[in-house]
């Protein structure tokens, strides 16, 4: 079936120009692609592409700089927020964001994450939590759920041996440097719209030099979880959301 696009039709949705034409390498259905697009849409709509610098991580989103059509810098594993700190301090008038997975931000980069937020660095930290090390073959992450089977927890995560899933977002929200902290998702159109608003708010706060805005996106890893994308999103809703509930975690008084 193909419908013709007649003269009386207008384009109501298209890929933002702030995404490059390079096809993304992500597995089918991977949430990273949606998070990239939502972030780039906000940057396009705010007209700040020329003033924005992103910092890419190590993880599946290591090639974010191939897709995001803004100035970008790659960081070593876990160090994106430290690199973003450097960028922020050298270029105080730019919009700066870091983009990291859970292995990156909440395992090897825990120290950088805590101290960046504790300093209240005036950046947006985007944290994509899929509860696993996607890139390296689905190993257990600090965020993997109790009982979750991964390549390094083949009998399921046992919290008595392997510790509890780390709610790093709630942790860092306690720090005075954290200005706006929220948890979102990208599995439905409504969730996508809410995330978009949170990114926009974060850049607006950054312009006012308010401190660290930290947005977690609970996402999927169909390959690491060994599910189809539709099954993965379903599993995420039933298992990830109860432990990592969506919504605002710390909001400035002006937003309440």
């Amino acid at each position: 079936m193909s419908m013709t696009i007649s003269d009386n039709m207008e384009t109501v949705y298209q890929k933002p120009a702030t995404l490059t034409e390079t096809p993304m390498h992500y597995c089918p259905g991977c949430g990273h692609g949606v998070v990239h697009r939502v972030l780039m849409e906000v940057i396009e709509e705010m007209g700040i592409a020329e003033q924005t610098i992103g910092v890419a991580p190590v993880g599946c989103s290591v090639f974010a700089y191939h897709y995001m059509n803004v100035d970008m810098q790659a960081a070593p594993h876990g160090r994106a927020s430290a690199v973003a700190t450097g960028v922020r301090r050298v270029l105080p008038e730019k919009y700066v964001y870091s983009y990291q997975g859970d292995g990156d931000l909440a395992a090897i980069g825990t120290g950088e994450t805590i101290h960046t937020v504790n300093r209240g660095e005036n950046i947006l930290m985007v944290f994509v939590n899929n509860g696993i090390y996607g890139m390296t073959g689905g190993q257990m992450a600090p965020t993997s759920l109790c009982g979750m089977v991964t390549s390094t927890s083949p009998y399921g995560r046992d919290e008595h041996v392997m510790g509890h899933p780390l709610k790093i977002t709630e942790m860092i929200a306690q720090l005075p440097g954290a200005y706006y902290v929220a948890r979102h998702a990208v599995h439905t159109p409504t969730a996508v719209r809410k995330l978009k608003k949170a990114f926009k708010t974060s850049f607006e706060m950054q312009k006012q030099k308010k401190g660290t805005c930290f947005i977690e996106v609970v996402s999927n890893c169909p390959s690491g979880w060994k599910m189809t994308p539709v099954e993965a999103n379903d599993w995420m809703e039933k298992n990830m959301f109860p432990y990592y509930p969506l919504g605002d975690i710390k909001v400035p008084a002006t937003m309440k």
Partner: protein
Amino acid sequence: MISGTVTIATEICKGCELCIVSCPQDSLGLSPSINHKGFRFAQLVQDNCTGCTNCALVCPDSAITVYRETKSSKRASNPLVASQAA
């Protein structure tokens, strides 16, 4: 009912089906054939798209462009509204 349509970049699509399950109209389905990457791709299977953009919002590969009938064209084609406007 507002009428709309979508175009899908079939060589970009990875057949994840997330657009298909997000469509309130059941307008989308997977192709019988495969693209150069080896994926069956999403395509319109019914002529009832409303241009709601749901599918495009959840597509990880930004493969979908959405079009909708403009309000002015709707008005022109609706004699009641047209006469009121006159």
